[in-house]
């Protein structure tokens, strides 16, 4: 069966510090991968998605970036965090097409102080 992992589970970072969140998927090959952010009490905001190694599509211009160095690894990064980057970050995977059912990881709660 397929499983999706995210770490860390929680993170507290000062403004201006770098960020690296990692997501890995097991039990499937060539998945579509997604990064979402969810502010408190709000809906899901799609940040990035990837249909293959090295292929990244950005949905919202901001100081975050994503990379997919391996088939089942998706990384969310920032060089300098802003207060507004605080939120709940979720990684998800799906099979093709992009409209297929998505399966979410446990999430990372990021607080920028």
């Amino acid at each position: 069966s397929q499983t999706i992992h995210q770490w860390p589970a929680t993170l507290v970072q000062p403004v201006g510090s770098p960020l690296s969140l990692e997501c890995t998927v097991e039990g499937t090959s060539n998945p579509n991968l997604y990064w979402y952010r969810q502010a408190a009490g709000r809906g899901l905001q799609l940040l990035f998605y990837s249909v293959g190694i090295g292929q990244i599509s950005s949905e919202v211009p901001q100081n975050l970036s994503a990379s997919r160095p391996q088939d089942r690894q998706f990384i969310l990064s920032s060089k300098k965090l802003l207060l507004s980057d605080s939120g709940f970050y979720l990684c998800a995977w799906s099979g093709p097409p992009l409209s297929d059912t998505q399966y979410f990881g446990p999430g990372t709660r990021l607080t920028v102080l």
Partner: protein
Amino acid sequence: SQKIEQNSEALNIQEGKTATLTCNYTNYSPAYLQWYRQDPGRGPVFLLLIRENEKEKRKERLKVTFDTTLKQSLFHITASQPADSATYLCASQAAGNKLTFGGGTRVLVKP
């Protein structure tokens, strides 16, 4: 623009009653709609998918309908239990053929 919308107000319901949630879409015709459940501090979990040629779909105490004329899907939780308290999200294929999520409706089932 293509939109998928849910009632942002929380739904408070007594245990044993039926909870009904609404998902409306505008300016497009999705081939199917999906429903997810999200508990606080966790990622959404897929519940049900209903296709445009299916009027109704059931899974245990859950029932989903899809009305292409009204451009609406209804999500019912029958014989609701406190354990059903969560936020429920609908989603469908929208702009760019990507899955787009509604804002979610929070359900609170009181004993």
